[in-house]
């Protein structure tokens, strides 16, 4: 145990001293870093955590990038995605349909949410928008409670994925997570290229800055906004659907995911797809290696990391200074 490690987490030390157990476990971390099996496994688990986080966060960053809306209701879309998927799975027994239901259902929800509600507060104070989102967090949680009940639920892992995990280069990877990583990567590539290369991507980013001018150039901004929200909602919903087999479903489940997604988008730079990807992966790695070295301070590590990033780069890793 080094001196810096002790001062790093003083409160824990005091508490743990009573229980005679180490606040930081640098030996474990060092042990893990020097064992290739551990290194591979923890890296892949970081990747897994990161990729799912990315799917949620990318919608958030997209919506912020385009509409400058800090979408506090994003977690609710994740929640709805999970519930839709679970219900569809129970009704049809088909995993594919469940994923579709999660994604499509939330896309529609996103569209309605934007067109009917959010679109009315674009001119107003930014915080007014946050408020509308917040209202929907409250409403959505209660709606889920009314429809599905207050108890937590589980969707269950489809039989096809109830198989032994794969051993890749000494690390352990469940096949289900391979699927998850694949989906997230595809989303990252499609979105990343789509937004930077295509005209529609450029238009979307321009509409973010100056909707009046964009519409004066003959572009239907309402359509774009609705579309972006639907896309963002869909990504969150898809993430929720993909998470449903391995996470418990409960009203308010979107909340913790939302907070982590915010950390990811802020670290990566609000509005940057690449940033969201890198941010999510970094966070995943912090979690997976942090749990080795600082089992009691993983959460704190994430916030600390966020502060450090923002202090050294005030707009996140890939964020642009507002012009």
């Amino acid at each position, binding site marked *: 145990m080094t001196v810096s490690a002790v001062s790093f987490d003083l409160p824990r030390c005091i508490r743990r001293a009573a229980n005679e157990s180490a606040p930081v476990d640098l030996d474990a971390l060092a042990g893990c870093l020097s064992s290739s099996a551990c290194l591979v496994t923890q890296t892949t688990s970081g990747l897994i955590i990161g990729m799912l986080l990315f799917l949620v966060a990318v919608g958030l960053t997209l919506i912020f990038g385009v509409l400058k809306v800090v979408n506090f209701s994003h977690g609710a879309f994740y929640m709805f995605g999970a519930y839709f998927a679970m219900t569809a799975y129970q009704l049809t027994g088909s995993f594919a349909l469940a994923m579709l239901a999660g994604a499509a259902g939330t896309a529609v929800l996103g569209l309605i949410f934007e067109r009917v509600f959010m679109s009315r507060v674009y001119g107003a104070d930014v915080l007014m928008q946050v408020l509308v989102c917040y209202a929907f967090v409250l409403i959505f949680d209660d709606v889920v409670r009314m429809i599905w009940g207050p108890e937590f639920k589980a969707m269950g892992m489809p039989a096809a994925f109830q198989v032994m995990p794969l051993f890749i280069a000494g690390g352990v990877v469940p096949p289900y997570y391979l699927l998850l990583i694949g989906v997230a990567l595809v989303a990252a590539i499609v979105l990343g290229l789509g937004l930077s290369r295509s*005209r529609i991507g*450029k*238009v979307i*980013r*321009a509409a973010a*800055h*100056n909707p*009046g*001018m*964009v*519409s*004066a*150039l*003959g*572009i*239907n*901004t*309402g359509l774009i906004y609705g579309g972006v929200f639907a896309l963002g909602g869909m990504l969150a919903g898809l993430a929720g659907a993909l998470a449903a087999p391995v996470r418990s479903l409960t009203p308010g489940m979107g909340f913790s995911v939302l907070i982590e997604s915010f950390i990811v988008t802020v670290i990566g730079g609000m509005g940057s797809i690449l940033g969201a990807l890198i941010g999510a992966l970094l966070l995943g790695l912090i979690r997976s290696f942090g749990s080795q070295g600082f089992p009691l301070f993983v959460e704190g590590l994430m916030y600390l990391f966020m502060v450090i990033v923002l202090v050294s780069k005030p707009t996140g890793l890939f964020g*642009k200074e507002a*012009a």
Partner: protein
Amino acid sequence: MSGAVIEVADLDVYYGTSQILFGVGLSVRQGETMALLGRNGAGKSTTMKAIMGLAPPRRGRVSLRGAVISGLKPHAIARAGLGFVPEDRQVFPEHTVEDNLVIGKKKGPEGQDEWPIKRIYEVFPLLEPLRQRIAGRLSGGEQQMLAIARTLMGNPALLLLDEPSEGLAPIIVQRIGELLRQLRSLGSTVLIAEQNMHFCLGLASHATVIDKGQIVYAAGIDELKANEAIRRRYLAL
């Protein structure tokens, strides 16, 4: 009035609770270059924004070749053939120059595509070397050129130009003047608000004078030049 490309009648426009335009009416015919003149704060920009649907009028009507367009969303109005260059330029600051142009790209109302990017660079040679530059970091004048070029990319049938010469070097102003004259000779219709009288009077075929939100005078350009009273009173010339 028959033959009018755009006809504005009885516009009342408010910002919040204060009324800015009072029954403004004007019309521009095919091929005309109409100058909208008036002092600072007279309501020129507001008139243009009202026509574009950016400051929706509370009363009155705007029609384009007989079809009412007031009440439409700005994008629908733009698609109907109006192209607008705002006074404060409003380039997309995080995009490159070329991206700005690409975003402005659209076919004209009759499907015409007269402004390929190549032609834009011919008309604005200064923009060509700046293609990959971030628009927000351009100089004021460079941004002004970009704003005009971007609107031309949309092949408008009617151009609304709000102070296009502001902040431009004389040599560029001269070039834009030539461009507008060229457009006119091609039959384009232009409504232009200007403070640079020298530039404007040399360009326009007709003029409408607005003061305190009301139209006070409308005539051919030569008539205006001859009418010293009006020039003194409203244009300080």
